[in-house]
């Protein structure tokens, strides 16, 4: 921008903000109010390390803070977009960044703000979260003064080890099982023996149900501990409740990461392009600077290593071991936009709305009701895979056509990403028994995917179980499986043996204050 290289004032930013708002409104959704705060690098790392400004004091945040500072000092600084879902929305701009990167962030933030405002999964979000965060931080400060920093920080570490296991959906009603009842049937009197048998079975079941604790498997591990752990002090229960409150804030973000970043990226691209087109304060250099940053944001996560392609030729291979949510989300939105106006024959068959809907209406509908699971299950097509560089098989980079993705591979990508979006990459863990072996043991069940059983990392399971035992105050056990070794499975198949139905079970068991151990059964 003319005369603004490195020098700009808050007024300049305000003008940009107003221009961004004007253009963003063209996308069809009223904008929530956003407050941008210009902060110094230290404050930015502080907020970024915590995820929420003013969160409680803990050494782990300090570690992340150091990491970011080191990266920054090493020249690996990056553009931060930090948006806090409050009313009004709070966002942060790093003081000293170029005016073009400030523009990119401002435009990007409006996409996030729109998602936070309209997406159904953010409906339960507490828009006053910051005051609760601050009150929590104050209370934890008090506990640190009273019980010692190490004691409190260690306790938080233990909670953090388990905080990720929460109830899946904040929106849906929980199923609650009822006490089994005996239902009389017609002609019962004609078959007294059968009826008695049926009644006895029911009575046994009812007895079992009455003794069961919890009645239904519980996924909110920390919640269960907060309520039922026998030996926690009040301050410890309070810390658990603080961590659970803050977890609720992050939960919908995890469910909508791809869509969130996709919408934000879509917004910033639309706004910046339009603004640079219509405002002659911007020149070609500004546009190039923006495109350079945009390319960094949208860089696919691909890696190159040496290997063999299908012709057994040795050479560099690209493969992707992860996806970039910014790239994937915005690619999907753009693809959907095309399908709305210019669908192929197959696409018309697949989506009845294809070709006869306003793309803006479709996009805003997606903003309102989709999450990552829906997005991955429905829209990961070969086109999307090629554009977002999602491959299941490593590719030779010698031939460009090798980057082609067919229907079958796209389906596999879609199924993988859908599964991952469902669990957000976290093993599903349920509490199934709060009084194991009648001595108060806490039993967990790892619900592995029967189609593709993957066990737990043993070292991490042991570490986590120690934290759990510390919180529960009594012995804890977790039932999981060993990941079947594909080579052994193949070998067995070759020898004509049938595949096992179930992978080998494994129990992790830990007494408080002792090392966790691995067992094949709990009979000891």
């Amino acid at each position, binding site marked *: 921008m003319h005369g603004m290289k490195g020098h700009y004032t808050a007024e300049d930013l305000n003008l940009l903000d107003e221009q961004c708002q004007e253009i963003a409104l063209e996308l069809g959704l009223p904008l929530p109010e956003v407050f941008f705060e210009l902060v110094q690098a230290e404050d930015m790392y502080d907020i970024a390390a915590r995820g929420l400004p003013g969160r409680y004091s*803990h*050494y782990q945040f300090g570690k992340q803070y150091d990491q970011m500072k080191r990266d920054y000092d090493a020249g690996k600084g990056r553009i931060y*977009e930090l948006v806090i879902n409050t009313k009004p929305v709070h966002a942060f701009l790093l003081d000293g960044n170029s005016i073009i990167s400030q523009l990119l962030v401002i435009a990007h933030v409006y996409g996030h703000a729109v998602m936070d405002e309209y997406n159904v999964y953010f409906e339960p979000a507490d828009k006053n979260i910051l005051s609760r965060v601050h009150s929590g931080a104050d209370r934890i400060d008090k506990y640190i003064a009273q019980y010692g920093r190490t004691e409190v920080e260690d306790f938080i570490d233990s909670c*953090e080890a388990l905080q990720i296991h929460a109830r899946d959906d904040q929106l849906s009603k929980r199923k609650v099982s009822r006490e089994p009842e005996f239902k009389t049937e017609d002609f019962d009197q004609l078959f007294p023996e059968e009826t008695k048998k049926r009644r006895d079975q029911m009575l046994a079941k009812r007895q079992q149900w009455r003794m069961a604790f919890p009645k239904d498997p519980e996924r909110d591990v920390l919640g269960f501990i907060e309520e039922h752990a026998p030996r926690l002090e009040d301050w410890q229960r309070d810390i658990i409740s603080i961590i659970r409150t803050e977890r609720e804030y992050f939960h919908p973000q995890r469910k909508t990461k791809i869509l969130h*970043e996709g919408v934000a990226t879509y917004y910033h691209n639309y706004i910046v392009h339009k603004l640079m087109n219509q405002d002659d304060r911007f020149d070609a250099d500004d546009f190039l600077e923006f495109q350079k940053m945009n390319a960094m944001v949208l860089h696919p996560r691909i890696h190159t290593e040496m290997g063999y392609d299908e012709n057994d030729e040795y050479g560099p291979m690209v493969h992707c071991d992860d996806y970039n949510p910014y790239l994937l989300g915005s690619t999907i939105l753009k693809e959907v936009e095309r399908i709305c106006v210019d669908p192929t024959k197959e696409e018309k068959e697949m989506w009845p709305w294809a070709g006869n809907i306003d793309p803006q209406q479709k996009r805003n509908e997606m903003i309102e009701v989709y999450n990552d699971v829906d997005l991955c299950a429905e829209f990961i097509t070969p086109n999307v895979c090629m554009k977002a560089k999602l491959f299941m098989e490593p590719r030779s980079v010698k031939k460009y056509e090798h980057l082609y993705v067919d229907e079958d591979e796209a389906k596999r990508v879609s199924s993988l990403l859908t599964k991952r979006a469902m669990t957000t990459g976290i*093993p599903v863990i349920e509490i199934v028994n709060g009084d194991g072996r009648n001595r108060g043991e806490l039993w967990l069940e790892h619900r592995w995917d029967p189609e593709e059983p993957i066990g737990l990392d043993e070292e991490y399971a*042991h570490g986590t179980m120690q934290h759990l035992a510390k919180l529960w105050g009594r012995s804890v056990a977790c039932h999981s499986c060993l990941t079947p070794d594909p080579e052994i499975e193949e070998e067995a198949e070759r020898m004509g043996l049938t595949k096992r139905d179930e992978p080998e079970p494994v129990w992790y068991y830990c007494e408080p204050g002792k090392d966790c151990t691995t067992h094949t059964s709990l009979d000891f």
Partner: protein
Amino acid sequence: MAVAKRQGIPTGRGERDSQHHKDRVRKQITKHLKEKIGGEDIITGDGKIRVPVKGSKRYQFIFDRGKQEEGGPGDGPGGSGAGTEPGAEDYEVWLDMKEVEQMLFAELALPRLKPKKETDTEVADIKFDTIAIKGPQIDKKATMRRHLLRTSATGDEDFEKDDLRYMSYREKPRPKSKAVVFMAMDVSGSMGDHEKQIARLFFYWTVRFLRFRYDTVDVRFISHTSDAKEVNEHEFFNRVESGGTMVSSAYRLVEKIQQDRYPTEDWNIYVLHASDGDNWQLDNEEVFKSIERLCKVASLVGYLEIAHGENSLFYGQSVRSYGLQKTLQSKGSPGPEFTSSLVSSEKEVWGALRHFFAKEAIDESVQVN
């Protein structure tokens, strides 16, 4: 107005938390060093020591990574998904000797160190006890008083820059503490390789600690068999001898050197002696008397008994009734300055150092084992 400089979002915990994290790492390293202190490699290495930092992992239930097709949950830039990634791996820190000393020796000190002779006043003590108009640290009380003095007449309630008062320091000369440490080591035939190694390690770390903490400490080295010799540092750590044992010879030599060269008016006296406790029976009475006399002049008389290792011919002897430590104990306490400790492996060397030089124990009377 939608862009502003400050809107009262609290920050500033980052720097503090980072300090807490560093403290934690430091504590862990220190703990590890203490276990490692008996290791040979820590001494013979090229001055750098590798210390693994464990426990920095953030445990969570994660999938068996070896067989999982792809990496962990994708967490892009931006801080919205804080805390979803499995924790950082173990890492290693390389420390040089100076850092090692700083960590280890922070909790050690010479017990009962008294200032001697006021002629030596090199050591300056810094005291924050004056008030100045400029300075780094504001003095609230002084500022308030100044403010009251100024405003009592006018009734003006606002603070002005002129009111500010700061704490200031001045250098206060402090009488210097001079100390001499006598180190006596048994090098007789019954001291096997294992016992000598422990004794050397103990003295090695003691010397390092003294040189690290005190600028003006004299160290006298004495090695003894059935008679005692004053030797230089190199000889002390490297001399190999054999022969019988008469512990009293060492204590007598200490007494003699002390009387000749280190008057108690000028010097704090410390005596350390390491042996396997295998003394000539008839000599024990003499040793006890010598120790009693030394307790009257010294701030600490420490005796380290090294239990024989499993490979030694004398294995198990030191716990027998005629070991020197047992014998001394049976005679009662020669004075609160005397203390003894028994070690049987390299791992216990740190414990012994703490036993003699623990900072917290300085003001309490040292217990007799």
